[in-house]
């Protein structure tokens, strides 16, 4: 009979296990199926802009130099990324752009090809495997030797615009200008802009060579020109990173300082009054419940954008989190140690100092350091909303939708910053807790 009962209970347990083993995945799958349609995943393929993805990916590892011929004045300008900051000074050009007699410009491409920008608002390009493409602006229309139909997809032609993309280059002819893009791998002008005398010199030459700029020493000069690089703005980026760290540091430490006394009020074994304890707990819940997003919005209305707003938003949210964590740590304090201190005739303040603080400090310090690391990330996010630090630079670079190499640079910097914070806080945690 005992056996039968045992068998029955085993059967029951197995049945429950089986239901759980198949039921739980089924519920999750059902939920995912619901979300699949709720988020409109089938429609996503249509909405996705794969050309955007292609530009983004290409831009992260390459840059383009624009050779632009103004069709009205006939002047030719060469500029990196088409930006004023990257423009070659009048009369200079990279070695693959050759102005010809009579106003034409010969542009050499990879593999010995070349494009001729003609004086009569036209161009000539012999594309290997396709043939010679000739196009010209006649009056207000673009005339070319291309057939009307059956063009490959890398050529788009209409009466107002002709665009040919092949072999790491693109030529477009419109009424206003003829423009040629040539793509190069790497990040352009990362160290020096074109107006710096150090552009184009190697590291060895700068370190050991003769003085390049007579007015300045090589090291001081390179540092000045690198730090003040107008295109990449290294000084501003470094400052933005520092601002983000500052937000995280001030917010976390400030929150810890505010939360510690409040945590005593909300810990069961320290709070003198039940009502006070209840009130302190509700304050913590409120601070956490309002959440960083709402705090950021409210505070930025009063203080304007900047690192102070971000630091205060972190401070308020984390006061709630710390308050809860600290009061839990205080509730787990061993009473014997306090009793021992009290038995020597210690006053209450001494009891706290020598009985309580040594027990809780390791817990508190490790919590604070964990938060410091995660708040570095939060500070980036808050900076993007409230306008401060590296988060702001990142969103600005993304909104322009063309400086993806800068976005990549900022992303790499953010990742390195967070990882560095992670190891610093880990190192401090080991060091401090061992020392205490």
């Amino acid at each position: 009979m005992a056996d039968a009962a045992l068998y029955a209970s085993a059967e029951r347990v197995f049945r429950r296990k089986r239901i759980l083993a198949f039921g739980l995945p089924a519920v999750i799958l059902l939920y995912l199926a619901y979300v699949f349609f709720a988020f409109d995943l089938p429609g996503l393929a249509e909405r996705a802009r794969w050309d955007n993805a292609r530009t983004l990916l290409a831009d992260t590892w390459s840059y383009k130099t624009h050779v632009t011929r103004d069709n009205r004045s006939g002047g030719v300008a060469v500029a990196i990324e088409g930006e004023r900051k990257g423009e070659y000074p009048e009369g200079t050009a990279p070695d693959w752009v050759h102005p010809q007699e009579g106003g034409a410009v010969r542009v050499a491409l990879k593999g010995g090809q070349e494009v001729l920008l003609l004086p009569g608002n036209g161009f000539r390009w012999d594309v290997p495997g396709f043939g010679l493409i000739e196009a010209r602006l006649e009056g207000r229309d673009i005339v070319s030797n291309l057939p009307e139909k059956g063009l490959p997809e890398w050529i788009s032609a209409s009466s107002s615009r002709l665009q040919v993309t092949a072999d790491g280059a693109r030529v477009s002819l419109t009424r206003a200008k003829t423009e040629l893009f040539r793509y190069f791998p790497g990040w352009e002008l990362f160290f020096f802009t074109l107006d710096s005398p150090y552009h184009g010199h190697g590291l060895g030459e700068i370190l050991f060579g003769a003085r390049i700029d007579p007015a300045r020493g090589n090291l001081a000069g390179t540092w000045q020109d690198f730090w003040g690089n107008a295109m990449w703005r290294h000084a501003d980026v470094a400052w933005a990173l520092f601002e983000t760290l500052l937000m995280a540091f001030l917010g976390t430490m400030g929150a810890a300082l505010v939360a510690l006394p409040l945590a005593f009020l909300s810990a069961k074994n320290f709070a003198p009054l039940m009502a006070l304890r209840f009130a302190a707990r509700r304050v913590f819940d409120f601070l956490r419940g309002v959440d960083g997003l709402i705090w950021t919005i409210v505070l930025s209305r009063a203080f304007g954008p900047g690192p102070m707003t971000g630091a205060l938003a972190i401070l308020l949210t984390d006061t709630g989190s710390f308050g809860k964590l600290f009061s839990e740590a205080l509730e787990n304090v061993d009473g014997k140690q306090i009793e021992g201190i009290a038995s020597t005739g210690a006053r209450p303040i001494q009891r706290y100092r020598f009985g309580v603080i040594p027990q809780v400090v390791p817990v508190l310090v490790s919590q604070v350091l964990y938060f410091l690391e995660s708040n570095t990330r939060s500070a980036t996010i808050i900076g993007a909303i409230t306008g401060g630090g590296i988060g702001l630079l990142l969103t600005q670079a993304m909104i322009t939708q063309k400086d993806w190499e800068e976005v990549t640079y900022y992303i790499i910097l953010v990742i390195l910053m967070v990882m560095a914070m992670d190891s610093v806080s880990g190192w401090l945690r080991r060091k401090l807790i061992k020392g205490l």
Partner: protein
Amino acid sequence: MTQTPDAPHDPRGHYMALMAQRRLYGGLTLGLFALLMISGFMLADSRNAGGFWSGLPQVFDFPADVIADTLPKLDRLPGHLVRYFPALLETINIAAVSTLLGAAGAIVLSLLSTRGLARWPRLIAVFRRFMDILRAVPEIVVALVLIFVLGGGPVPAMLAIALHTAGALGKLFSEVNENADLKPVEGLSSVGATWLQRMWLGVVPQVSPNYFSYALLRFEINIRASAILGFVGAGGIGYELRNAMAWGKGRFDEAAAIFLLLFLTIIVFDQLSSHVRGAMISSKKGGF
């Protein structure tokens, strides 16, 4: 304390000197910390668009505006709450799906990067680094890039949060795995179980309560994250909040409804998750 042979003859004096030195160092550290905090706040204040002291009296202006806009139209509040509930649901869905997907990824990553359990022991360092990178990328970065490619909506936010969750939970899970008992794994491998079977039948049942507790905590964090990502264009209640804020003064009653929804949601899930985790811990202490 170890007794060194050349200990001074005056232990009390020595102890006092040691304590004085310790106190000095402690005091110096505290002083340095205070200096850092004060100068940091002053620096942050000077870099802010509005000053701290001039802004302080205005802190309650915005909440006061919101309340002033809402009170006369209190009868419309339930309507607003109902109207924005689907957006709230979307935010919660984003958080839930990204927690599910992230946790699934985290289980795989953590098993692959735990010593003694890994499928390819040589690649442990690679998977650890990979998790570190996933963890270090702020969600907003991935979300903004994906919004550029996929367009606005819940999917970029979901993917961004899921990636971050996989990294964050992966680290916690692998700490849990390290404490798992290896005997069931050995037993299973002795009867010729594959790696997948060993993990699924030998490890996961041991650690799943801890997994669940961490995932629950993460879900709560992800709700906040998905609200924030909505604010930068990724759907859900955050997006509605930004639109409602754009109405400007005099029409903040809709923003008030959204604030209320968000606040209540966070509180509810916060309490729920701490209750469930508390119940799990106490049931474990009770023996089974």
